[in-house]
């Protein structure tokens, strides 16, 4: 049978099922196949906080969305073109997100009256006509899987568990994905259980063959590889890129990496990852609590290691006091906060950007800490190296603010050669640096570098430089305890000046304003880069002009940020919080920045954001016409 092949530029697929159905694995495999084919891609896993949420229920639905294209893309996509739903709950939970006319592939095996009732379907949606807006393929995926793996002698339940591989096979056929990688993966993963490996491979192949032979699927699709800069690529998630960035920073600085951490979602993967790399001299310490995690890291920094602690919001709250100590000791330390929904336990598996002000101010006293934020999953690598650079150069704790979306999302990454990475070598102090009144040489731990204001890092084991540091205020220079009012004033201002001075090492802010006559600037930070970028493209496609700038450094801001902001009539700041960056830029630069804010635990949709930007552009032009009757679209102004 000859089937039609159509060319597409881009597709958004969402795999959805019970949290036990292996949807994350299915999505990961499809992603790897897609990466191998050379499409650009972006992924969005979404799963419940419970390890095994109640089966067949809406809260138990786990999904994995993948956007891939023949050109460079910036987001996992607003609305899926294809939904694979493994049960009624997965259908119900995701249907509302689909674009009209989307393809829906449903496993019918679980569409029993009981399961339908569980999620509040009074009638079977597959037969009651409610899915007319979509192209529905109802297929007994489970039944066919069980049939396909018969020869492996598994029970029906176990046999049925390979249904995700059947679905993957079918989708791999539909989109012409290469299959060898998945077969190899399954054989490796189940190397000790040949029966299970065989069943999964058989189900995967059966899914492919089903697509190839059945009348139900008459069209398959090709998406050509994307044009990307030359290089070696791999797919990488944010947490993995961040782990590698820390490792690379340690290698490039010549210091051993010490990670002190307490497990917390969504940061634990960094602990898991770094624990695998002991051959690089990485020490990972799973502490008794968040406080001990940062304490041990700071202790290791005192000893001359690159100390790192990884956590999420609730953990940062617990680490605050030690952060203050690190500010006072002026030792290098990287604090990774993979932000999640808050306050309190909040939404552990959902993303948010609501720890910016916590990172900025969440300590007693004047305790400035530089803040760096990655903009995409792969960018977590470079951001981690930048955080380490600042920490090592300025002898300061540095926040690295990732988030749940970056942590678990993935994209292609052009792998750098280690030799091209920044040189982060540091000089430990080895000599005395001061002479007392009697002509004796001594070591002053708080005698600063005039350029960076960093203090010398003298590690234990260095003869003649024995010294004591602590959280009590220190005398400028000597570091001895000092309660002197003028000295305290000086030290507070000096620590602030040191952090402010980081700005001198930063490049000017990149502003994307191709026509140079945009009047609205959209300013973002962190993981909103993708959605904002995609929205900006839409706006420009529609013939409007807009400028975009994205902050890697949140503290200090790039030196020219104020000038940039003042060049535009309106500044819009989309954030997954209630306006934290907007608050900072308004306070610092007295510009009328407008927030556009969502805290839904999910990234912005580009389409929606584009509407908001259009609205601001219209508002600016309307003001010119003396017309201020523009509705406000629910935009928050802080």
């Amino acid at each position, binding site marked *: 049978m000859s089937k039609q092949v159509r060319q597409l530029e881009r597709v958004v697929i969402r795999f959805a099922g019970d949290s036990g159905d292996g949807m994350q694995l299915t999505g990961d495999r499809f992603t*790897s196949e897609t*990466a*191998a084919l*050379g499409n650009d891609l972006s992924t969005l896993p979404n799963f419940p906080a419970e390890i095994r949420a109640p089966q067949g229920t809406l809260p138990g639905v786990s999904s994995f969305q993948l956007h891939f294209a023949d050109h460079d893309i910036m987001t996992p996509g607003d609305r899926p073109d294809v939904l694979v739903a493994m049960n009624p709950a997965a259908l119900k939970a995701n249907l509302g997100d689909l674009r009209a006319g989307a393809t829906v592939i449903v496993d019918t095996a679980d569409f029993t009256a009981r399961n339908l009732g569980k999620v509040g379907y009074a009638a079977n949606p597959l037969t009651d006509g409610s899915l007319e807006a979509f192209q529905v393929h109802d297929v007994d995926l489970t039944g066919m899987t069980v049939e396909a793996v018969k020869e492996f002698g598994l029970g029906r339940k176990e046999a049925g568990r390979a249904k995700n591989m059947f679905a993957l096979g079918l989708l791999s056929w539909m989109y012409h994905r290469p299959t060898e*990688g998945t077969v190899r993966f399954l054989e490796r993963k189940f190397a000790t259980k040949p029966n299970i490996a065989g069943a999964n491979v058989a189900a995967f192949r059966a899914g492919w063959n089903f697509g190839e032979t059945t009348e139900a699927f008459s069209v398959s699709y090709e998406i050509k590889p994307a044009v*990307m*800069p030359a*290089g*070696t*690529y*791999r*797919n990488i998630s944010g947490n993995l890129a961040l782990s*590698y960035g820390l490792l*690379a920073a340690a*290698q490039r600085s010549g210091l*051993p990496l*010490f990670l002190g951490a307490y497990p917390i979602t969504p940061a634990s993967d960094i602990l898991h990852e770094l624990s695998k*790399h*002991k*051959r*690089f*001299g990485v*020490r990972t*310490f799973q*502490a*008794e*609590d968040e*406080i*001990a995690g940062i*304490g*041990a890291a*700071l*202790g*290791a920094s*005192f*000893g*001359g*290691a690159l*100390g790192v602690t990884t956590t999420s919001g609730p953990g940062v709250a617990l680490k605050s*006091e*030690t952060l*203050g*100590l690190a500010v006072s*000791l002026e030792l290098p330390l990287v604090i990774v906060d993979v932000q999640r929904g808050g306050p309190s336990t909040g939404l552990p598996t959902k993303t948010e950007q609501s720890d910016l002000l916590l990172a900025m101010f969440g300590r007693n006293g004047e305790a400035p800490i530089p803040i760096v934020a990655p903009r995409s999953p792969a960018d977590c690598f470079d951001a981690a190296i930048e955080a380490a650079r600042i920490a090592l150069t300025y002898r300061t704790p540095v926040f690295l603010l990732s988030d749940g979306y970056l942590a678990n999302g993935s994209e292609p990454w052009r*792998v*750098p*050669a*280690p030799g091209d990475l920044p040189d982060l070598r540091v000089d430990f102090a080895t000599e005395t640096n001061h002479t007392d009144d009697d002509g004796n040489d001594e070591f002053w731990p708080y005698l600063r570098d005039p350029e960076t204001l960093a203090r010398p890092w003298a590690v*234990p*084991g*260095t003869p*003649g430089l*024995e*010294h*004591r*540091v*602590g*959280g*009590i205020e220190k005398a400028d220079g000597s570091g001895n*305890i000092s309660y002197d009012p003028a000295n305290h004033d000086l030290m507070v201002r000096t620590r602030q000046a040191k952090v402010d001075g980081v700005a001198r090492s930063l490049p000017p802010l990149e502003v994307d304003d191709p026509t140079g006559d945009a009047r609205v600037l959209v300013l973002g930070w962190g993981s909103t880069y993708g959605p904002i970028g995609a929205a900006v493209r839409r706006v420009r496609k529609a013939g409007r002009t807009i400028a975009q700038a994205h902050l890697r450094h949140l503290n200090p801001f790039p030196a020219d940020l104020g000038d940039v902001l003042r060049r535009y009539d309106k500044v819009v700041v989309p954030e997954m919080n209630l306006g934290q960056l907007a608050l900072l830029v308004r306070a610092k630069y007295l510009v009328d920045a407008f927030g556009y804010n969502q805290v839904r635990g999910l990234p912005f949709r580009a389409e929606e954001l584009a509407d908001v930007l259009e609205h601001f552009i219209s508002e600016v032009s309307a003001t010119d016409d003396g017309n201020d009757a523009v509705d406000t679209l629910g935009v928050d102004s802080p």
Partner: protein
Amino acid sequence: MTDTAHRVNIGLPSLRDVPKTDVPQRAADFKTDQEVRWCPGCGDYAILAAVQGFLPELGLKRENIVFVSGIGCSSRFPYYMNTYGMHSIHGRAPAIATGLAASRPDLSVWVVTGDGDALSIGGNHLIHALRRNVNLKILLFNNRIYGLTKGQYSPTSEVGKVTKSTPMGSLDFPFNPVSLALGAEASFVARTLDSDRKHLTSVLRAAAEHEGTALVEIYQNCNIFNDGAFELLKNRDTADDWTIRMTHGQPLTFGSEGEKAVVRDTVTGALTIGEAGADNVVVHDAHAEDPAYAFALSRLSTQDLRYTPMGVFRSATRPTYDAQMKAQLETAAAADTADLGGLLRGNDTWSVG
């Protein structure tokens, strides 16, 4: 006490990796130019002098010794030690020292803490340091009161203690720090007294020799807020009656006439106080693998310090966390090369251009 070094290369197992000096050291070498600011008469002075006097015996390079403390009167200690030092935050010294000791096996790391610092705000870090057996020496100055905050009861204060925060007497049941440490299966636990320089020094030496976390409880007099707290054990008239001096391999007899002893009940196995002449007098075994024996010893004393065992309760051999961590790193390094480029590329790459 002599101020001169008796430098003997004692090859202390716990300090195997710490570089030794060949320059004779004196107590004065460990003093800083900082004015010591404890209240006159405070027990901390005696402990400081004992530590400064004892360190030359170890013969370690001074730059390879680190004192880490938390918050409280005792935690000012590092400022007075001419070694590397960190005066950290309340309760967290064991955590900070763990990171330092685990990453630098060439350092001799000491924690100085108090009853509030170690047992109240920092209780969690203390028990976890003890169970992990990191190569740390923890000196817990127990004065049974909060000194720095001016006299509230502490987690080791006896029930009914009248203080500023407990005008009608405290309700809290106190910790026995030795029992707590043994409950956490600490590999080394000892107790000594600030004013008994000889005993204090011998216990410090045993702690330094020990491979792993050592907890030394030092009864320390706070003459301002809890003066005389240990009088029963210090006063010549009563000390012998209530102090059980423990020496490994020796019978646990005590009393002004040596007439009393720790005896083991032949039926229940419980430890009690009996007659020195009895045939069930316990011979002290500090190396017993099961901490239950040492724990039973620690339970002999009452809240008002009658029957207080002094010396090393337990000194057992258990692999240390830092040594094992180092071994894992060496094993991993021997098994595979550390190729950053290869790691970054991974197994699933594709080429463009």
